């Protein structure tokens, strides 16, 4: 379908497309991910770039892409392993890509791989590249735990010490307090509040009950299990973990019962909070990768694209009280950009950080008061229809390797559009720092 054809005709035959004159069509050719595993399980002894490498090799394998056919590789990650701070480069070299392909790493909390993808989109739009591999990786089985600042200071001074006397006096200055390690921050830097705590407050602000949250968590696990059993999660590649078994499935999907869920104590706000371990996403190891190309290039290389990547937005708001409202802010904005309404969307894939966060976002989207008071809009856009929403599970059940989730969401939209026969999909996600992202994806005509 090309722009310039009579609009009335297209409306009669199919619905319209979001292609814009003078703007290159960009397509998602393929998307893959390693199985997402609870941290501390089978991946425990790996390093982050190992996981990213597995995703990249999976992508190469699935697309039969020549190893020098990529113009640029971009990866997203959140907790950086200091030895591989540009994990994109280490992973692409290890995955056998040509060493002539530049690679860089981006970070934007839980929407890091979204940034990796949109950076790629930007490079293609700008005419700099035609073929991009984007992805994300997170490895929570091992995180950088540092010496204390005092100890680091002493150790650095030791490096410069010239005489034995200086060294001995520095070593002598070490006290017990020096030995206390520094863990990676679990709290938001600007507010010193942990995300779970903020999620609990957010749920309370929107009057989301514990019951609603547990029901949503159960839904997520149930749908994920159904999708897994039906073989719908075709983006998952199998991965032979060195020294361990081959992993082919996500291992965090655990449909339980409402009674079981109700037994859990609140994890953050005690004793009256509503966010529990079971209605929150869990610490996950995993990596994802997608192949993005200009439509022309994809067709020229003989690929059958899966979807168009269309309009996207990044939003940000107060990191204290609106930390996790990215989807509520991003959705109306990206719909307006694309000229669509909620009803036009056939497939929704929202990142599920916490069940309470999802419910709060849905309520915000469905509130005229919120739209008017905080978004400067006249009316609400409305909440997504649940029968279109996260039908193959979500971060709560499949897992949430921070840096890798964005690519999973986009690939899932593409696969669901193919499977369900819809035309438009919407991805939305929140991220630490009070930021968010939303993207419209259009099915590629089959």
């Amino acid at each position, binding site marked *: 379908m090309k722009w310039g054809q009579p609009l009335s005709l297209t409306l009669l035959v199919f619905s319209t497309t979001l292609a814009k004159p003078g703007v290159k069509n960009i397509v998602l050719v393929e998307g893959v991910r390693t199985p997402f595993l609870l941290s501390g399980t089978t991946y425990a002894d790996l390093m982050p770039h190992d996981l990213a490498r597995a995703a990249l090799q999976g992508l190469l394998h699935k697309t039969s892409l020549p190893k020098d056919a990529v113009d640029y590789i971009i990866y997203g990650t959140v907790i950086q392993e200091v030895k591989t701070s540009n994990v994109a480069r280490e992973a692409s070299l290890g995955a056998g890509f040509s060493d002539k392909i530049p690679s860089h790493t981006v970070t934007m909390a839980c929407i890091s791989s979204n940034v990796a993808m949109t950076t790629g989109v930007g490079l293609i739009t700008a005419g700099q590249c035609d073929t991009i591999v984007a992805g994300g990786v997170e490895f929570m089985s091992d995180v950088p735990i540092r010496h204390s600042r005092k100890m680091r200071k002493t150790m650095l001074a030791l490096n410069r010490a010239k005489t034995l006397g200086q060294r001995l006096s520095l070593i002598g200055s070490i006290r017990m307090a020096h030995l206390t390690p520094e863990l990676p921050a679990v709290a938001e830097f600007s507010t*010193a509040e942990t995300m779970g705590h903020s999620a609990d*407050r957010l749920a*309370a602000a929107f009057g989301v009950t514990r019951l609603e949250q547990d029901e949503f968590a159960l839904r997520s696990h149930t749908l994920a299990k159904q999708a897994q059993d039906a073989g719908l999660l075709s983006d998952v590649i199998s991965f032979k973990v060195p020294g361990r078994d081959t992993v082919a499935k996500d291992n965090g999907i655990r449909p339980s019962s409402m009674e079981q869920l109700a037994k859990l104590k609140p994890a953050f706000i005690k004793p009256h909070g509503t966010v529990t371990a079971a209605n929150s996403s869990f610490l996950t190891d995993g990596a994802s990768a997608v192949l993005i190309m200009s439509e022309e290039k994809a067709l020229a290389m003989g690929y059958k694209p899966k979807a168009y990547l269309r309009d996207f937005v990044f939003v940000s708001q107060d990191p204290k009280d*609106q930390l996790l409202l990215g989807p509520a802010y991003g959705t109306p904005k990206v719909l307006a950009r694309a000229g669509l309404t909620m009803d036009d969307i056939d497939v929704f894939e929202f990142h599920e950080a916490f069940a309470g966060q999802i419910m709060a976002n849905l309520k915000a989207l469905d509130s005229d008061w919120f739209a008017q008071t905080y978004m400067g809009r006249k009316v609400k856009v409305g909440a997504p229809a649940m029968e279109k929403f996260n039908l193959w599970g979500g971060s709560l059940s499949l897992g949430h390797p921070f840096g890798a989730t964005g690519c999973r969401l986009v690939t899932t939209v593409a696969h669901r559009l193919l499977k369900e026969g819809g035309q438009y999909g919407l991805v939305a996600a929140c991220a630490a720092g009070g930021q968010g992202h939303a993207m419209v994806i259009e099915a590629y005509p089959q």
Partner: protein
Amino acid sequence: SSFDLSFFLARTHVNYEVKEDVAVIRMNDPNSKVNTLSVRMQNEMIEVFNEVLANDAVHSAVLISSKPGCFIAGADINMIQACNTSEEVTKLSQEGQKMFERIEKSPKPIVAAINGSCLGGGLEFAIACQYRVATKSKKTVLGTPEVMLGLLPGAGGTQRLPKMVGIPGAFDMMLTGRNIKADKAKKMGLVHQLVDPLGPGLKSPEERTIEYLEEVAIQCARGIVHKKILLTKKKGMMQKVQDYVMGIAFVRQQIYKNVNGKVMKMSKGLYPAPLKIIESVKAGLEQGPDSGYLAEAQNFGKLAMTSESNALIGLYHGQVACKKNRFGVPERPVKNLAILGAGLMGAGIAQVTVDKGIHTVLKDTTVEGLSRGQQQVYKGLNDKIKKKAITSFERDSTLSSLTGQLDYSGFEKADMVIEAVFEDINIKHRVIKEVEAVIPPHCIFATNTSALPIKDIAAASMRPEKVIGMHYFSPVDKMQLLEIITTDKTSKDTTASAVAVGLKQGKVIIVVGDGPGFYTTRCLAPMLAEAVRVLQEGVNPKKLDALTTGFGFPVGAATLADEVGIDVAAHVAEDLGKAFGSRFGGGNVDVLKTMVERGFKGRKSGKGCYVYTPGLKSKDVNPDIDDLLEKFKLTPNPSVSSDSDVQYRLVSRFVNEAVMCLQEGILNGPVEGDIGAVFGLGFPPCLGGPFRFVDTFGADKLVEKMRRYEEVYGNHFTPCQLLLDHAKDSNKRFHK
């Protein structure tokens, strides 16, 4: 039979709603921003309480305020002030005690849900309830501020608090009257559970936070009824040890003695309230609750009739009045403020401005001066992090509103400029001309000077209607007072704008007329002149300090001179001496000048009347001033040199000058005069300020003393006309 009308009147202050088995009692005074335990509030509360008790469907209750930011701010002070005898006040106290006793013994558990201020009688109400839930909002503070009004917690507070938070904790709360934040209150055992304030949702954050608090409190109430929440907590090891130790009579006696000693040392015995608080607590703990409650009620009655309480309540009302802008809303709010001079004052002004949402430019002439000033602002904010008042992130984002610079760039956007450059009329004139060349027409030019008449400074201005004086006190972040000085030409909008900025900076403001020394400096100068004479007469600085603090000044006269700076004092003495003539004489100005010549400029130079060693709190008298004072030695006249006479010589000159400022129209009224003297110069708070002092002490008695001193020293002690008028007619009072 008589009709009970109140039965038919709708309740306006207290109402309740039954939610299944829990009664939610809501307080909301429709006529005020805050809830107070007024007669009306109490009566309606008792009515509601009776209904709740009688309702079999109700098993528990939640007590909550519908006002965002206030649970109950305290008892209604007017209720106490309306009493004429201590017996009446004692009765008020006993009624309060009785009501809270019923609450405490309620068979249906009552949960106090606290959001905002929970002070005085409000706190006493809350601690009579079975359980307390509080929000972690910044506005939530708990405390017993009665002592600051010269009173004590008179509705069971002195009896319940020691049991709840321990004897030392209770004394700390009641004797300092300080506000306790929610998380600290939880640690102390003052509240049981905390609730986080909520952000935006489907309602306004304030509204939804109160609703959430109510939901949690209801859960707690049900939890208590269903025994899921136990009211008697299992005691930890530490608690058991503490209880054992406090169970020993000897230990308690030591505590009373210790606390008593501390109070006497700090208050010099000038404040009766702290001693009565100790007495009441002791009565309860040593002789049992009946004696305790009786002692509390009787002491409360006694305290309410003291002049000290009257003075402190007067200051409280005055402070509230001086936190309002009587000049209206300025035409345009100040969003960009530029400060000239990054010295102690300039940087201090920046410090109290930059975190109030005002973009602040700090300009100096040298990099060194500017850096020092910027560091002062940084340190001020950083210290707040250490006290957990702000986060490091808030510090950083606050500092992003501060621009340090050496030139006038950006001054075209300034709405107000405050100059805090050196006190020299020529420099001030140069600065005003430089600034007026770069600022927009609407920009206000405020000058921070402690003595130079504003009209003299404004003489160099092209638009004197935009020129105003803003006299800050050092250290700016600690001293509450701001003295604003208007000239005949200053426009009302300029004044309104200056007051608005001062209020934003958190200041208590007096607006006075122009003249040498305005109000505060003019009152201080004759007292310091007298202090110098006292030194010349052979009273050493330590003794002089003891005499002044013994009268109730928080800082002794010699120490005050060192703090202000001997050079500044000399400057002021000379300037005002010229302006007011021999009346401002007393001590020889050359004493101060010689000290300055020898480098004894006060604390800032390490030596003044005292020697200051960094890191040391105690200070010794500067031995080098002995020969200096010897050189200027005066022979004291024994008839006016007793300790008491020396005190009254110092104070009467201060007070007479204050009254003269009112007589001349420099002051707008006695309230501002009292506030300025207490908050700016440390006039004894227990006396309530110079005007309250005249009312209480008696103008006739004061005049009589002054006449005696006048005979010896001449016109330094001539009472002013207004004071004489008051002396003649005992019905004349500054305060009603």
